[in-house]
Structures are given as C-alpha cells and as structure tokens.
C-alpha cells in the first residue's frame, strides 16, 4: 500500500509540471521545450530565496518570478512567432533551454545543491504501519490543490471560459471580442508559474543541477501526450497512471521499469490516437 502512495507522489509531481505544458500548448499550440528549463530555474530561484527568507517565501517568489518570465516569454517569443511554422517556435524554445541552463550555471555554478524540506514538513507519519515522509504527502496536496484550482478557474470563471474557448478556436474567440493576446500572456504566465512551483517542490526531493530539467521533461511530455495534449483532466489521469505504473514497475519488474511510461503512451495512442481525454477530430 505504501508503494501505491509512493506512485501517487511521483504522479502528483509529474502532474504539477505537466499541466503547465498543457496550458501553454492548449492556447499557444507551442511545444515548449524550455519548460524543463523553467522547472530548473524555479528550483534555483526558490532555493536562493529560501536560504534567506524560508521555504514558503521561496515558493511564492519562485512562482511569481517564473510567471513574470512567462509574460515576457509570451510577449517577446510566442506572440512574434505565432505566424511561423510550429517547428520554428519549438527550436527557439529548445535554444532557450540551453540559455537558461548556462545562465543558472553562471550564477549558481555547476555543483549539485541539496535542499532540506521545511521544518513543518520535515517529519514523518505512520501510514499502514510504515513511516512515511510528511513532505511527500505535501506534494500530493499541492497537486490536488492545483488540479482543483484549475478546474474551478476554468469551469466557473469568465476568464476560464475564454481560455477554454480560445483553446478550441482562438480565431473565433478573438472575433467575439476576447483579447486573446492578453489571455495568452495570462495562460503562459500560469504555465511557467506552475513550472516554478514544481521546481520548488522538487528541491527537497532531488539534487539541484542546471541540467535537472532534462531528467524529468521526457516523463512530462509522455504525460501530456498520453493525456491528450490539451486536456487538463487527461493530464491528471495520465500523470497518476504513469506515476503509479512506473513506481510499481520499479518494485516488481525493475528491469523494464524505465520503459513503462513509454509503453503506456504507446498503448494509449494505439487505442486512442487523440490521447486519454483528447478531443479528437
């Protein structure tokens, strides 16, 4: 049972990172290769701020800084390139990833950094007779909060309605009087802000390094594609399924565990080419 919870933790972590990609792809139709770089930058910003002002301030500043970065990204990269072929934007984001990695390497150096969990989350609780870290439960709580927050925002607010409409047909939505450029800036900001949030929660889980985004972004893309590219619900389900099978694979079939996410994606796309919750044609 504890292993199921461990799978849930990894799935939750993947979801928080992947849903930012889903948001950006949904509105801008951009495969943002720099997302792993934003995740990494978020981890470093949070670490740097937390060293002086504590973990929670670090988290807030990281999310805000990355969201601000997202606004600039949308204004000066995505918007000017929106009329270009998708491959152009993809390559630009790929280049941006390297720029971010080198910038972080210059500022913080190449050496690994390890971050302790905040005092309030440093302990453990007993679950099914086993000691389980509170911090890991916090990761699940963050994912649930993000999922609920996004669902409420998208389903119950006017802006959420615009976002959903723009995801389906940005041209018609614009013709109805919605400022899709401002909407895009907002959505990209939320997407990169979520990358900052996932970077922050990754701090006490894994070693910080300029190339840390590369270790997680493949699983993240697998989640997005399996979920159906633009579907928030799909990404949530895919993240939990992939996290769970990946973890159980490590326990029962460790030899093939690393290919399990890819196998799940292949099976899902074989049965439903539009992904778990994709709209299809």
């Amino acid at each position, binding site marked *: 049972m*504890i*292993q199921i919870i*461990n799978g849930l*933790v*990894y799935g939750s*972590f993947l979801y928080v990172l992947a849903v930012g990609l889903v948001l950006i792809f949904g509105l801008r139709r951009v495969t943002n290769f720099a997302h792993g770089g934003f995740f990494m930058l978020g981890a470093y910003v949070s670490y740097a701020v937390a060293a002086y002002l504590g973990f929670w301030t670090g988290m807030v500043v990281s999310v805000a800084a990355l969201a601000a970065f997202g606004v600039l990204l949308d204004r000066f990269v995505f918007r000017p390139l929106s009329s270009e072929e998708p491959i152009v934007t993809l390559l630009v984001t790929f280049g941006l990833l390297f720029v971010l990695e080198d910038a972080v390497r210059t500022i913080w150096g*190449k*050496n*690994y*950094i*390890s*971050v*302790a*969990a905040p005092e309030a989350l*440093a302990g*453990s609780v007993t679950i099914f007779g*086993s*000691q*389980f*870290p509170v*911090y*890991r439960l916090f990761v699940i709580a963050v994912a649930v909060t993000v999922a609920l927050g996004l669902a409420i925002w998208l389903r119950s607010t006017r802006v959420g309605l615009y976002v959903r409409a723009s995801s389906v047909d940005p041209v018609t939505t614009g013709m109805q009087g919605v400022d899709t450029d401002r909407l895009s800036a907002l959505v990209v900001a939320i997407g990169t802000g979520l990358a900052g949030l996932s970077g922050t929660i990754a701090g*006490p*889980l*894994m*070693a910080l*390094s*300029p*190339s*840390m985004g*590369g*270790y*997680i972004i493949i*699983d993240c893309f697998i989640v997005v594609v399996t979920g159906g590219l633009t579907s928030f619900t799909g990404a949530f389900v895919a993240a939990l399924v992939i996290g769970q099978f990946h*973890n*159980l694979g*490590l*326990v029962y079939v*460790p030899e093939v*565990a*690393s290919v399990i996410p890819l196998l799940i994606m292949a099976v899902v796309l074989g049965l439903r080419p539009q992904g778990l919750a994709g709209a299809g044609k």
Partner: protein
Amino acid sequence: MIDSKRATILGLSAVVVSATLATSAWAQKEPLKIGVPTALTGTYSQLGDEAKRAVEFAVNEANAAGGVDGRKVEVRFLDTEAKPELARQQAEKLALDGYKIMTATIASGEVLAIGPMLNRWDAMFVATINKANDITGKQCQRRLFRVNRPDNSDAAVVQPWLATRSEAKWAIVAADIAWGRNSGESFSKAAAATGKTIVSENYPPFGSNDYAAHIQKVLDSGAQGVWIALAGRDAITFARQAKQFGLFDKVTTGGVSFTTDGTVKVLGDVVKGIHTIINYSSTLDTPGNKKLVADWAKAYPGDAPTNFQGETYLGMQVIFQAVKKAGSVKPADVAKAMSGGTFETILGTQVMRKEDNQLVGPNYFGTVEAVSGTLQPVVKMTVPAQAATPAPDGSCKL
C-alpha cells in the same frame, strides 16, 4: 642603489632568458597532448568538474616546472555526459586532433566503449576513476591502463569491515550501470564470505528522480544494513530521500562513491556516520600527498583535493613519468613504458602490473565524521597495496 638596479635588471634578464629557453625547448619537442573526454554535464557533471580541475592543476604544475620531458603539456576537454556512445565519439575526436593520451573519464561504461578503439585510433587511455573489473579484466587492452582502485579492490576492503559487523541481513542499492552491477555482485560475495545474507537487491536506473520504491523495498526487507553504490546526482537524490524515510536512522549504511568528499559537502549532516570505502583522502599521511595538499591550497585557497581529484592527479603523475621514461609522446611508446613500470605517486611507490595494466595501490575504509567542525570521510582502516589489489584472475589476455 646602482647595485640594486643592476641586480634587478640581471634578475629580470635571467627570467626572460629562462622563459625564452623553456619556450624554445618546448618549441623543439612535440608537446604532450592530453585528451580528457569527461562528464561536464549530466548526472556525473560534478565528478567531471572535479576531474577537470585535477587535470588542470597537474598540467599547470608541470608546465610551471618546465614541462614534462622538456615538452609543453596541452590539454583539451570534451563533454561526454557520462554516456558511453558519446564518450566514444568524443574520444575519437580528441584522438583525431592529436590528443591521443587520454584520461579522467567518469563512468566505467565509457571506458569500456573507448577501450576497444584505442589501437585503431593509435591512442592510449589511463582510467583514474573507473571501477568496473572488466577494464583490467576480460576487456583489458594493451593501451588501456588503470591507476585507481577497481571494484574487486573495494571488495577486498569491504570484506574485513563486514566481518566486524553484527548485522546479519543486508540490502543493496546500486546504479544500474556496469560499475553499480559490479559493486553489487562484489558486495554479495563479501556478504556470503562473512556469513551475511542479502535480503534485497535494487538496481535503480542511472539518473533516477525518485528512489522511494527502492527505499521502501529495503525497509520492508528486514535488512539491518544497506550497501549503496550510487554516485554524483544519484547519490545526492537518494540520500535526501532516504533520510526523509528514516532509512539511515533504521539501518547501518555503507557505500562506495556514495559519500565522497563532494557529496558530503553537499549533503552535510544527512550522511553523518555513514561508512564508506575511501580510495583517496587529502588526510592521508604520505610525503607526496602532503605536498599535493599544500600546493593545492596555494592554488585554491581553503580547498583540499577530493577523492576523485586525488585519484586523477595520481593518474597524471603516472602519465608524466611514463612520457619521461619513454622520451616520447607516441601512445605506443608511452604505453610500453607504462606497462610494468614503477611510479612515484602521492601515495608512495606503485607498480603498474604488466599482466593486466592495473596499478597496485593501497585502499582505505572509513566513516563520515566531523574533523575540526567539517564533515568528511575519515580513514579508519588501511589495506596495504598487495592485499588491496587482488591478483589478476586470468581473464585479462594482453
């Protein structure tokens, strides 16, 4: 006053003349070109950085002393990301550009990918960090040498330590790469030889993000001790997560390349009290090591060479002495001079065994403890060179 001026002019002239002579001597002889295909990014980037610094230190030191065999030493680094295929490609580039004497690669798999190509490239390689037994075992090559302690040497150190332990049940967590598998197998053999039982074996993928499944398996197995063979980013990520699960508080923990000088610096109290194989320590009391530590502190104030830096520096010493002995920088000549040669190293006089091209040196075991307020691996047991370097098992056919 005039005398003082004259003395100054004479002194400056002497410096200029010496520098000119040195430069002109360097100009007459082919430079010694060292190629370093190493992990400058990725999971082992910190290890690669450490190795790079040690190579640069040794090269600067040699050039400041007039070069090696009157030759200027030049070095070029290329990033391998610790990936065997990329390492082979980068090593080939270096060899084609004339950097045919190579060293300081991080992962064993990289060396095993480079080794078979050395004759074709007319190159040679000196392993300084790589532990897989096969490097000087069944995949040995005439132009492939190793100066660091192989896995079977680590096993020779672990066994006497394990014999002193009361824990009967042990678990293994090792990286799913050549070195990790080797280390796991060696620990299993040492456990069998000392009457211990292995109750859980875990080989997580290289570069994993989440070790919770493996940590939980160890906890559920009833193991009283765990042996860890993870390095670099993997070691740090595992240690942080294991601490959160209380693993280090519940079971005795030991490892290899897990609590190195570098990882201890990053992890601090998380790894206090963990037992570890120590292949090199800046605290070792030998004249050569004391000199290295003193010179290193002059070059990098407040810093001491780490285990990987000490091992890499030792490798550079062996290369320089072999070049001097060969009077040549041709890999074939240097390899010939290196095989069976005797070398003065920071750890004393050591012999490069001609049967398998393995340098015979001592090995150490210790614990992570505070020394003058700073945590570091502290040597508790020294195994002399002959005992620490098991005799060739016959699998190497040179």
